[in-house]
């Protein structure tokens, strides 16, 4: 590991100034960054510890929920308002990682975690355009079982592993970021980037910017919501596929729905067509829900080896709707 200097900051403007220096990385919970340092994925000259910034609060206002970027996953999941009024959010957090990791990991860091593509994380250098732009993509014609079915390119077929991001997409949340030029607000559905021909750009966050908060609008109507996570063991594992559903009901009839899938693309995948098609259906009419969801898979392009994700994702979406 390359050595680095270490700096603590307690003021956002001081932090932003420090982050403008070359070869500088912020560290929050460290649960991603420390691995990157060990694996050589990142080798900064300076680390700026941002955990002292006053951005760890969770506030509930008439407009909705404002979650500070430095709030820990465990604290957000245990917040009474999150637990009672935003089940999909609490579930996405509690079904991620482990109790120890959730005590460390922050909301901002969670969104900025990188793909779990095994080639990206490999100990030995393999072709990977996210690691070394232009080096190729070992996964494209390698093991594709965990890779994307939507929105991939020849340059990268990876998925994004954040559970939280999928819940935030279904809640129409906003990621608030701050840089030299002031504040920007990015819809949670657009924060992560599809690879295109620049897979090395993982998110819309620009160099030198900080995530300061995540905002969930009150009108997201999250009382009826659910996060369904399908994994290879019942706990402490990343999703193979996941689904976040937020539903409005009149009796048993769906009057509105928002649906996002995880594990299928490098960003949470909203099913806009299915959201409209399920309106008017009964939540207990599984065949009709499945047909509505399946009709929104026209853009799916499975890779050899991950065709199973189509069936799995459609069924996960229906189950999430029914559990919401």
């Amino acid at each position, binding site marked *: 590991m390359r050595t680095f200097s270490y700096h603590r900051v307690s003021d956002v403007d001081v932090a932003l100034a420090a982050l403008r220096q070359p070869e500088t990385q912020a560290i929050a919970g460290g649960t991603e960054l420390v691995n990157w340092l060990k694996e050589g994925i990142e080798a900064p000259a300076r680390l700026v510890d941002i955990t002292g910034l006053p951005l760890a609060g969770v506030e509930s206002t008439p407009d909705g929920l404002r979650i500070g970027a430095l709030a820990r996953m465990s604290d957000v999941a245990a917040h009474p308002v999150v637990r009672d009024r935003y089940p999909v959010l609490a579930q996405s957090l509690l079904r991620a990682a482990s109790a120890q*990791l959730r005590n460390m990991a922050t909301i901002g860091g969670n969104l900025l975690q990188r793909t779990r593509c095994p080639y990206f994380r490999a100990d030995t250098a393999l072709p990977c355009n996210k690691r070394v732009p232009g080096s190729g993509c070992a996964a494209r014609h390698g093991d594709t079982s965990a890779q994307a079915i939507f929105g991939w390119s020849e340059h990268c077929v990876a998925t994004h592993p954040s559970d939280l991001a999928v819940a935030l997409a279904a809640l129409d949340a906003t990621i608030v970021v701050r840089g030299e030029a002031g504040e920007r607000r990015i819809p949670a559905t657009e924060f992560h980037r599809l690879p295109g021909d620049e897979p090395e750009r993982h998110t819309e966050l620009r160099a030198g910017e900080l995530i300061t908060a995540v905002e969930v609008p009150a009108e997201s109507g999250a009382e009826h919501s659910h996060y369904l996570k399908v994994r290879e063991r019942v706990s402490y594992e990343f999703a193979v596929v996941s689904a976040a559903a937020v539903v409005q009901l009149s009796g048993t009839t769906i009057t509105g729905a928002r649906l996002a899938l995880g594990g299928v693309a490098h960003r949470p995948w909203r099913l806009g067509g299915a959201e409209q098609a399920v309106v008017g259906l009964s939540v207990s009419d599984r065949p009709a829900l499945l047909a509505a969801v399946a009709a929104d898979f026209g853009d799916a392009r499975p890779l050899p080896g991950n065709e199973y994700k189509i069936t799995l994702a459609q069924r996960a979406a229906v189950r999430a709707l029914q559990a919401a």
Partner: protein
Amino acid sequence: MSNHVAVTVRVNGVDREIEVDPRATLTETLRDRLGLTGTKKGCDRGECGACTVLVNGRRVLSCMTLAVTAHGAEVTTVEGLSSGGELHPVQRAFLENDAFQCGFCTPGQVMSAVACIAEGHATSDDEIREWMSGNICRCAAYPQIVASVAKAAAELGGAAR
């Protein structure tokens, strides 16, 4: 080395002042600098829980914690659990239930269990399984581990540490 950083941490109730390499993890610092080898390094990448310690009362992974970031914190390791030669109820429950074979995961399991009980997440076997899932046991002593956590939780009233 020039960029070593002075760090003050309270470890098992004793203030320690050390100069650490900013790259050093808390696991390495506890074991190699402070001689507290109870904390184990398993995967060293956040996956197994063998390195679990309490920082300011919360269970965390010391292999994913840079020691510099623990400045000003209170750290409890497995060595800090017993008092006056008397084992902590969780340690006793692990012994009485044979909750280990090789014992490598045990310090991490014990620290995680202490926190799990204090958090109030040990009220049923299913809940214990879920909230202890961050601690992997290569010897698969899981049934005995769950039984030990349940027993200690009952003794501790599920709340107090």
